[in-house]
């Protein structure tokens, strides 16, 4: 099912069409061009994606030969990196800020985008993502007898003892975000060839940008405010009103999207009750 088949998401096309339908000849924004409206709407979707209705995408990426993972085209910020086990659960990798990613100068910088002429429209399209919830390829360490949870270097009464239990910070591997080369450096078992990235995606660059219905009105207010903002013919009080309306709608959208229900509160409280015997 496409995302826009549901009622909870509204496509950019619908938002723009609704905005234009309600636009009248004596509106301050009546002479805005189609392209300006779309550009501002996309900027609004991008803006909302940062802190109102973040789109967290989960994407499988292959680990490259140099233990790196290229960041996706619509990457904004990282949430977690991990590997999927047979249990269907994501086992998160830990962050290690000391993984080396140094470079050496080998060749002059490549041509910039602008030097190459007009943008290749086909190349600019970000491919659709498809579901792939199977475990990541490559086997994990055999944990059948929980060997790797066991520390065996414990001397006890002249012999090698064993200490049971998971040590603190024991993880499946480590990563470091390399923003200089726009990739992730991975340090993990050699037989793991794929990782799962969960990241904040730039919704504005998706093939069919959508916005949650809670934030739809806020987006329309954003479009209006941004269209008015720099127009010399719009009175200052109208600009102020548009700005205030946008922030009010944004506040409402944020409150609706980030609501905390009674069930969630109860679930959190009940987690702390244990049925273990007390001594």
């Amino acid at each position, binding site marked *: 099912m496409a995302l826009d088949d549901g009622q909870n998401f509204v496509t950019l096309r619908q938002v723009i069409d609704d905005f234009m339908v309600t636009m009248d000849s004596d509106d301050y924004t009546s002479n805005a061009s189609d392209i300006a409206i779309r550009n501002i709407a996309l900027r609004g979707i991008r803006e909302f994606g940062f802190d109102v209705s973040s789109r967290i995408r989960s994407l499988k990426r292959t680990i490259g030969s140099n233990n790196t993972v290229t960041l996706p085209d619509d990457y904004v910020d990282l949430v977690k990196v991990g590997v999927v086990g047979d249990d269907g659960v994501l086992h998160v990798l830990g962050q290690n800020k000391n993984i080396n990613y140094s470079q050496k100068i080998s060749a002059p910088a490549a041509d910039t985008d602008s030097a190459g002429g007009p943008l290749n429209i086909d190349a600019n399209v970000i491919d659709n993502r498809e579901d792939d919830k199977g475990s990541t390829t490559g086997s994990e360490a055999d944990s059948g007898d929980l060997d790797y949870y066991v520390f065996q270097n414990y001397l006890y009464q002249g012999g090698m003892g064993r200490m049971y239990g998971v040590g603190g910070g024991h993880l499946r591997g480590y990563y470091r975000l390399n923003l200089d080369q726009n990739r992730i450096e991975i340090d993990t078992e050699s037989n793991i060839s794929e990782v799962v990235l969960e990241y904040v995606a730039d919704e504005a*660059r998706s093939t069919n940008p959508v916005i949650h219905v809670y934030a739809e009105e806020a987006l329309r207010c954003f479009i209006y405010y941004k269209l008015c903002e720099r127009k010399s013919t719009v009175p200052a009080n109208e600009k102020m009103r548009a700005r205030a309306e946008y922030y009010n709608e944004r506040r409402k959208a944020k409150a609706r999207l980030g609501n905390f229900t009674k069930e969630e509160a109860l679930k959190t409280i009940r987690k702390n009750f244990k049925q273990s015997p007390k001594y």
Partner: protein
Amino acid sequence: MISVQRVYEVVRDLCNKDQQGFISPNVFNTLARVAQQNIFNEMFTELKLATALRASGRDGGRDKSAYKMVEEDLSTFIRTININEGGTINEDLLVNSDEDSFVFRRPADFARLISMNVLDSNTSVEIIHDNEKATRVLNSNLSAPTIDFPIALEMTDVFQVFPDDTDGVSMRYYRQPRARNFNSGLLEDSFPQFIPLQTPGADNLLIVDTFQSMNFDLPEHYINEVVSEVLKMIGVRLRDNALATYGVQQTTAE
């Protein structure tokens, strides 16, 4: 539709009021086409006035709105045509539809563009009139055209659609005013003209030839404007201040 016979008769009678002049069908036909074009152009100007009325709160509401009335009059001229990339529809308009571009020219009766849609879909095509911005839009990774958001660049007398693999477009536009026959049918290649029947021995008797004469392609209530426009020009032609002033006054009053 405005009857060319009625307009001709009113104009002839007004010109003859002081026995200062007479308008022949040939002169009338020359002026009629220009008069019709002027009125069509003024409709767009009237939209501005209607908007000003609305902004000042003096516009009648809903069905009495001046803006709505002009829109209603202009709707007579709205036309939709389809052009597909393969050139099977309106082939004559297609300039280029190879793998790299989809370019087509304006129809002959094109006046003002209203909108464009991808053929057989509800996807609107965004129009760019500003050629300087076009390059920037094509270079922008945010605003670059996509299949869901195609753009059409308007330059000289052609439109170029991006992305070039758009199958075809349906274009809606205001056409230029032409002529109507006596059954109100649109005559796409003709202009209003008054043709009298040939009556041997009675040269001054002008009876309209309903088969050859063509009516104005304007709503009925514009008859006064048509008469005024023609009179303005005849006033200049005859150097008759009274006629010219009357024409100007009537046009201003409208």
